[in-house]
């Protein structure tokens, strides 16, 4: 694995399940939580390892793990020589877990980026999300984190909830900006099937925001944050300066390799993607049997990789590097998509800068549609596959 790989550790516990979340999490007992660290060390011992310059604790709620546990995992990885000297460590935390002691612990565990799951500063929205913190607690957590001296303090927000107005969203964003985080992740609410919101939607109790509304909220979010000096480097991610961009998450969008540990975590080696058992129970059982907890794997052919490249790169402001695609896949994307590209440039969805096709804000808003529209086929691929 190349040196710029990322390491992801999934911490599958939460205090309670949020009504919108479809991640692999559960409300675990103290006992199970303490077993988790041992199991993770077992998984580390079993896997192929590598050299990583990012270590990301995501979840779930990683802040539920005591800081010394995080430190111990980090030390284990270090002692195996897996972490490069400038490795950045990321931790997701809930505001209610943030206090002086915890922050000192994170600092000792070499955490460089703290990502706070605020979701909103609007009391009504917080109620809707079923979060257990108040607006003031959230603000306090951000302030404490900033004082603690992390390289980057990031906050997560969710917008586009039913009944939200543009005025309310604008206020929420402005309040968030007032906390001066280095980084923001602003996600449009997605209603997933196997969630409380999914059930409400099916039962007709919850109505999703229309395409028009989503479009407006999306543009409003970008407008407010960009005018406050945050650069949207991805569909949902904003950074105050380039050094605050998420080094880890950028690996996903750049198709760089990553190794995932913990239940449901995904790994990618540049050609194949594999994923761990999703349930804690199955993941634990495999490890106790001394086996790698992989549940599935797919080999990607050139066409899959190209489609993913487009789909991921069009999410980023950096955009698609046509030269890179030509070298990597031997495809002249412009040749086979001349009309699409011309039309996208004309309609202001893309701009052309050197060998890059970069999405504009309007382009980011329909990135999936754009990715879908590209003809990928050198003709021979299609015939070879069929």
């Amino acid at each position: 694995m190349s040196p710029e790989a990322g390491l992801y550790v999934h911490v599958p516990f939460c205090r309670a399940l949020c009504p919108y979340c479809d991640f692999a999490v559960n409300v675990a007992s103290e006992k199970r939580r303490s077993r988790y660290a041992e199991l993770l060390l077992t998984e580390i011992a079993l896997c192929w390892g590598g050299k990583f310059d990012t270590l990301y604790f995501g979840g779930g709620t990683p802040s539920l793990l005591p800081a010394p546990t995080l430190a111990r995992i980090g030390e284990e990885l270090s002692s195996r020589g897996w972490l490069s000297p400038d490795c950045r460590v990321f931790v997701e935390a809930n505001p209610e877990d943030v206090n002086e002691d915890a922050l000192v612990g994170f600092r000792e565990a070499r955490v460089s980026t703290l990502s706070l799951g605020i979701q909103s500063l609007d009391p009504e929205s917080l109620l809707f999300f079923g979060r257990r913190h108040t607006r003031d607690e959230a603000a306090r957590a951000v302030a404490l984190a900033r004082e603690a001296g992390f390289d980057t303090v990031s906050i997560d927000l969710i917008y586009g909830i039913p009944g939200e107005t543009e005025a309310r969203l604008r206020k929420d964003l402005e309040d968030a900006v007032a906390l001066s985080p280095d980084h923001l992740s602003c996600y449009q609410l997605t209603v997933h099937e196997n969630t409380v919101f999914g059930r409400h939607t099916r039962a007709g109790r919850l109505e999703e925001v229309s395409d028009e509304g989503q479009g407006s909220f999306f543009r409003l979010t970008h407008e407010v944050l960009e005018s406050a000096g945050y650069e949207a480097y991805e569909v949902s991610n904003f950074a105050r300066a380039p050094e605050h961009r998420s080094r880890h998450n950028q690996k996903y969008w750049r198709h760089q390799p990553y190794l995932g540990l913990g239940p449901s975590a995904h790994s990618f080696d540049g050609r194949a993607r594999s994923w761990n058992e999703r349930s804690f129970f199955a993941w634990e059982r495999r490890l106790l049997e001394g086996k790698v907890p992989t549940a599935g794997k797919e080999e990607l052919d050139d066409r899959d990789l190209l489609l993913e490249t487009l789909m991921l790169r069009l999410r980023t402001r950096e955009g698609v590097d046509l030269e890179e695609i030509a070298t990597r896949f031997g495809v002249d994307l412009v040749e086979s998509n001349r009309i699409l590209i011309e039309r996208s440039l004309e309609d202001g969805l893309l701009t052309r800068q050197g060998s890059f096709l970069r999405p504009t804000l309007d382009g980011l808003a329909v990135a999936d549609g754009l990715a879908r529209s590209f003809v990928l086929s050198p003709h021979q691929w299609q015939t070879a596959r069929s």
Partner: protein
Amino acid sequence: MSSELVRNFCIIAHIDHGKSTLADRLIQKCGAVADREFRDQILDSMDIERERGITIKSNSVSLLYNAKDGKQYQLNLIDTPGHVDFSHEVRRSLMSCDGALILVDASQGVEAQTLANLYVAMEYNLTLLPVINKIDLPAADIDRIREEIDSDLGLDPFEAVPVSAKLGTGIDELLEAIVAKLPPPSGDQETPLKALIFDAQYDSYRGVVVLVRVKDGRIAPGQHIRLMHTDKEYEVEEVGLLQLKRVKTKELVAGTVGYVIANIKAIRDIAMGDTITDAERPASEPLPGYKEAKPVVFSSMYPISTDDYEDLAKALEKLALNDPAITYEKDSSSALGFGFRCGFLGLLHLDVVQERLEREYGLSLLLSAPSVRYRVTLETGEVLLVDNPSLYPDPSRISKAEEPFIKASIMMPERYLGPIMDLCRERRGEKSLFHYLAQGRVELTAELPLAEVLFDFYDRLKTLTQGYGSFDYELLDYRETKIAKVDILVNGEKVDALSQLVHEDKARTRAMHYCEKLAETIPRQQFRIAIQGAIGAKIIARTTINPFRKDVTAKCYGGDITRKRKLLEKQKEGKKRMKMVGAVEIPQAAFIAVLKSDES
């Protein structure tokens, strides 16, 4: 068998009046088929015929009937199709008969097609025997029907035989009446051979099986024959009678209806209505009545999957072996790929051919808007026949355009006259005339452009008359008209498969209709899509499809990528069935919705 003991007849009926059921009863009564082998509508051999209750290809059967006079008669029942599109087949069938049963529904009464075919039967001097069917129905009104037979058909109402083909009531009486009232065939067995070809079937082992009515002379295996119109010669291999199955005989003599097999390769090699004569001892002139079946409705057929083009070509070739009325030639569209420009006898014929291709050959097809054949005179004086919009000359070169007109005959209860006259006016009808038939029924005749009848005229008629109206037509002539070629543009690019030739007055409405249908069926994309209808450079209709304002998922990290790619993959898969016009994806469903829809 002496020709005194032969009766050649057919059944003339409006669709749904029970012709095939009556044929079934006659066949059963004469024991031509064991009860356990019997199935309904036994003469309708195609599934479509049985399902739709219509007869498309006529079939014939020879029955042996032991009459009350103690003699055995050979009854040759020649089945006829029951729809206007197939009137050429009706004609041929009638020419081979000496008599006809005129079947009238005991509740519906005389309908337009019955009347139209009756006139044809009279042209050929057939003896007519009225039959009132469905007397078992509660709504049956035999007295009223007798009155209609008298006033509308001009036949003796008291000769009419009441039957219920469904229950078998009155069938004995009908068989006796056939023997007593219909004449035996005339004809001289000793004069040179004259046999009328009225139908043909294709047998993959024996080639073409020609159905003939021998008018004069005799025909037997080994004989050298000549087809007088096509001027081709063959040697007869086998002759015989059709008794549901082919039954070989030594010869066919004047007056008989039977089949001839003579090593003929394709139905295209023969012409319906042609006369067979003896090559060595030819007749001096052919029998009258040869008339070529000409297609009047044209449409381009494209396989939905372009890979199926070869299959479509093969299927059409095979289908044409059995149905020489179809014409086809290669055509291509930049939106839909390669296909065929096909000619049909009418809309039902088109429908039936499409259905047979889809059902019997497993093809999925897309058809362009049906068109009539226009006659265009250029400034140079050159005259072109144009049915394909893509071949329509530049308007500046045209000095005159003409379109085919029909004479439509519509019969209906009086109370629907107003709405139907409006319908005819709306369809550019001329010279509407009506006259009262028996008891509150009216016959309306009008001269209409055929093109106006192609678009849902029949459906509208049925709706407006609540199913009581019936319709028949014959082609009249070509009349001067103003045609416009309407193009449909998607984001400025012409979708050639949607171009059509329309009367100028209807151009805007038709174009608007197409634009709206497309706007309903083309999915939103990330671009604004402009849909326009145009005549030349002039835009006459316009709609737009607004782009998606948001089409991107909020999160896409490690585990989401595979899931997301698979979703995109699936959506891309759906696009394979889409046609790209400019950067716009048009799903097949949009073409289908537009091409199948009507104006109303």
